């Protein structure tokens, strides 16, 4: 299978008050055709910034280095005008906040037609037909009524369905979903995930699912990257990661999911919080919270390397596994 997306050494730097800090540090990621890759991590670890970087939608104070290849073409070389042709057509995104992601003064129909009229050159009649199909496809009944509705009449779940319809309107090869269910009720969450899986299957689309919820990953993804403080600290296929996590942070995450907490009185939680991008510790970025911290951890940040056939991990605990392959990353 060929890679739809190949991200190499993606580093996103923000500068504020003359100071620059890396919010995403050397992210590498491959997504194959039809594959779902999860990116998991706590709030503030740089998931949204990474996905906005891939869309080239960062605000002006952010700069991107590395390489983002979509079907072999490097997105970082494109001009803004060229990116406008690619966004929506080749790569699309769904955002965390369905309540604010729709324009309050445009009807649903108008907002959904935009991409179709732009990318597919459809006229109003054609795009209307297609929008009604799309609405049905994302599980909205009464598509005819919703077409003329303004967003404020729709519930959060409905809006997120509309956002999905908007993103997939022109059959993008890759969809980035940035916490698409975080803002929704649990029951609605499951429905939205089902819709996304169904559509992904129908379109043979690749998916990057960004979340802080391992349950969502388990349900939708083939492979998963765990991010911590701007870096990937573990990467594996979903089963391996959930069954035998390697990194102490991943272990903590798995222990703290409600599913694994049956019988326990309180949920396990990892003490402390993610450091801010301008206060990353010198050694391992997880060291201040790690139960297995060693002297070397405080001195040097470990590289991301293969632990075994299935997993990559960024932790000194696995030093002996990689003595032969040691490269700094």
């Amino acid at each position, binding site marked *: 299978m060929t890679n739809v997306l190949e991200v190499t050494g993606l580093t996103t730097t923000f500068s504020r008050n003359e100071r620059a800090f890396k919010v995403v540090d050397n992210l590498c990621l491959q997504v194959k055709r039809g594959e779902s890759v999860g990116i998991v991590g706590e709030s503030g670890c740089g998931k949204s910034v990474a996905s906005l970087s891939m869309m080239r939608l960062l605000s002006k104070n952010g700069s991107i280095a590395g390489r983002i290849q979509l079907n072999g073409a490097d997105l970082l070389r494109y001009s803004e005008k060229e990116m406008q042709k690619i966004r*929506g057509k080749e790569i699309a*995104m769904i*955002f965390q906040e369905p309540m604010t992601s729709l*324009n309050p003064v*445009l009807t649903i129909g108008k907002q959904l037609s*935009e991409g179709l009229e732009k*990318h597919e050159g459809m006229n109003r009649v054609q795009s209307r037909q297609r929008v009604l199909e799309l609405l049905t496809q994302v599980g909205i009944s009464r598509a005819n009524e919703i077409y003329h509705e303004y967003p404020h009449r729709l519930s959060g779940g409905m809006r997120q369905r509309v956002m999905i319809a*908007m993103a997939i309107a022109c059959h993008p090869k890759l969809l980035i979903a940035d916490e698409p269910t975080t803002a929704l009720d649990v029951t609605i969450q499951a429905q939205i995930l089902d819709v996304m899986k169904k559509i992904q299957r129908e379109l043979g689309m690749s998916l990057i699912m960004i979340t802080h919820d391992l349950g969502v990953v388990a349900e939708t993804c083939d492979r998963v990257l765990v991010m911590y403080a701007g870096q990937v600290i573990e990467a594996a296929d979903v089963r391996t990661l959930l069954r035998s996590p390697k990194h102490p942070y991943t272990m903590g995450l798995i222990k703290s999911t409600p599913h694994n907490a049956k019988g326990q009185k309180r949920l396990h939680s990892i003490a402390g919080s993610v450091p801010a991008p301008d206060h990353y510790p010198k050694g391992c970025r997880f060291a201040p919270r790690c139960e297995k911290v060693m002297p070397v951890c405080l001195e040097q940040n470990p590289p991301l390397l293969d632990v075994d056939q299935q997993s990559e991990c960024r932790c000194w605990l696995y030093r002996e596994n990689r003595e032969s392959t040691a490269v700094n990353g």
Partner: protein
Amino acid sequence: MFWSKQWSMPRLELWEKIMQQKKAKYSFLMMLCIVLLGIIGPWIAPHDPTKTYYEAFMQGPSKDFWLGTDAIGRDILSRMLYGTRVTLTVAVLASVMTFVAGTLIGVTCAYLGGIVDNLIMRIMDIMLALPGIVLALAIVALLGPSQENAMIAIGISSIPAFSILIRGAALSIKQSGYVEASRSIGSSNWWIITRQFIPNISNVLVVYTTMFIGSAILGTSALGFIGLGAQPPTPEWGTMLNEGKNYLREAWWLATFPGLAITAVVFTVYLLGDALRDIFDPKS
């Protein structure tokens, strides 16, 4: 057709809200009356506004001349009725100019950001350093006094303040999720500016434009008062005020009625602007 579809909901709601609120309702109705007077004024005026009645120089209000006559025997009521149209036309056209240029500049600056934004906003700041009326005076001095030039001067001199206000409003739209979402499906700059920015700041646009019409009426009268607006014998309130100011003691009606008219109209416009702001933004 596209207008009615796109705007029908917000427009209907606005109408209902205006009718629900006392301040909005009455100022709106008053405004309507004033505009109506401006339109039908020439037909209901009892006399020719430029005709001199030799038997009636500087006569006080009477049965024939309800608001009296001026120094050369012209009917003040008729002149004021004709003047309504002059003042409103100048003020509204000037505001249209401010509205178009100010919205374009404000929204473009907010959308583009960076150097363009910085440069244009510095120029606006410099223009804003002069009080609006001084800037207007400078422009009229440059173009020569006439009704059209007064309009241009008032329009241009309000652009800096208007565009800065609009830029501020548009900046908050720029941060919004739906602009980001729209960009993520490849929307063009033009679409984002015309479909995302402008409809979403339409509230602010309506309120500010109303307020600016108020200032434009004051500006028109001020230029007329110092003789740089509409030229005699065109009946214009500011000019009439000027003509009357020398006879305040002997003939109070000359300056009083045009003065009252200016005050009443400006008051109404500001009241309407204020009411509209309350409707759109109930918090502040």
